[in-house]
């Protein structure tokens, strides 16, 4: 995650913080620490799952690019944005 921190340039949630989240198959997320709930879209669900399991930004981006059939650079920048977004909420 530190690697993400420097590349994404903002607050990034730790793997421990992410692992606290209760995530349903349909993309419903509950954060027991704050009581806040969220919805995540299908691509977000995949990335969140990978990050919780400790994937690096590159692994998560490659995997997403593969699942959706899109170029890795696009996946990579959108995964960075997603991680920063997580950082804002968690």
């Amino acid at each position, binding site marked *: 995650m530190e690697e993400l921190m420097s590349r994404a340039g903002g607050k990034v949630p730790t793997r421990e913080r992410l692992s606290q989240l209760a995530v349903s198959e*349909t*993309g*419903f*997320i509950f954060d027991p620490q704050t009581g*806040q*709930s*969220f*919805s*995540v*879209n*299908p*691509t*977000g669900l*995949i*990335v*969140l799952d990978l990050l919780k399991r400790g994937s690096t930004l590159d692994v998560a981006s490659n995997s*997403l690019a593969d*699942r*959706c*059939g*899109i170029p890795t650079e696009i996946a990579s920048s*959108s*995964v960075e*944005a*997603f991680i920063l*977004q*997580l950082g804002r*909420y968690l």
Partner: protein
Amino acid sequence: MNNETKKLVWEPPFIQPHRMGEINKFGRARLHDNSKSSVYGVSVIELLRRFGSPLFVTSEKQIRTNLRNTKKAFERRYGSVVHGWSYKTNYISAVCNIMHQEGSWAEVVSAFEYEKARALGVPSNRIIFNGPNKPKFIIERAVAEGAQIHVDHLDELQLIESVAREQDKVVPVVLRLNFDTGYTEPWSRFGFNIESGQAHQAAKMIALSSHLNLTGLHSHIGTFILEPRAYAEQVRIMCKFMRELESNEDFCIDTIDIGGGFASQNALQSVYLPPEQVVPSINEYADAICTALLEGTQYRRQIGRELPRLIFESGRAIIDDAQSLITTVVGTKRLLDGRRAAILDAGTNLLFTAYWYNHQVHTTKPSEGTIADTVLYGPLCMNIDVMRHSVQLPPLSQGDNLVFSPVGAYNNTQWMQFIEYRPNVVLVHESGECSVIRMCEDLSVMMQQDRLPEHLSMPFPDTVAMNRVLNGSTIARRS
């Protein structure tokens, strides 16, 4: 996971916090697919290929069906009834002529609308001339041609009288009335007020004039009226007034015109429930109106007088669902608050009614991906150019099409010539054939009315001096 796994629809990963009060009554349940690939039986792709985007599509069959059903509802209950087509609701020539072919008169409210009805070939005795601004030249024409003039205020009454005298005629006039039904905000700015005595005073003046003859009463209690009892009350008050006039003065009222205002199947932004649940059927309106009218005119039957002719001027209820607007997505965005947004090639410049309705929005191909809250923007450089502030839609991409409906009322008249060209309006004929009924604008249309004074004929008149400046700067740079 192997390569055979079905590819996921690409959308940037996104997380959205739930805010209290924002979850609708359907929870996050995936809404059913509401796409439709055709409008009024014609393929959207085919329409766009032939006529371009954006595109207004009008259904002749729907207009005729709506009008027939509405007239039948009144005729069954009351007998003789005339529909006055409210030109301002949609005055595209083909639309007006469909109405006229169905027997509707023209209800016009300005010199332009009067001239348009006559240009289309509407006989003057089938023109109802309403509105607060009737300049002398058009009153002269209406009097000479024998149109049915509805008087809005005292100055106008005097003007009509003087024109009638000049032309040495006795002009039949209809008084526009306003009063409080207790159901709607009274539109007291139009016509003569009953409660204050203005209406009685106007009737007296007509009675005293040897050039005027009071033949009818008119009122329009408002628009998008969701309560049929408002009309029952309107008719009761008008009949009471008619009876007073007929017993005090030597009048014989042959026309009761109840105006328009029946709601269409559209969703007002201020109304929580969907139109299916709040908009009364035509039969409910007709029931309320005709019951009150038969009651209020019973005195005439007792003395062997004919019943007055009933005129109604329904606009939106006849045309709204007979037109849809096809638009194209030109780009998509993610807003800072997490919502999806799309920019369309049509905005409030074309869909003026988006300011007060939540129109239905349909995609034109089966949806893929998660349905989510989406904002739809028009193409204008104005913050208020929003087609829908919040609508549940699947992810959109550039080039996707969205169909807005119903849009038939007040858009082809109130649309703005602002920034963009106005697009084609087409009609789906009863045969299924399609044709343009209003051509899209182009540069020549946009510049046609401009006039350039001599000294402004060139944008950069001093081109010689200009060249010198440009050359000078070139040299300066070289040195």
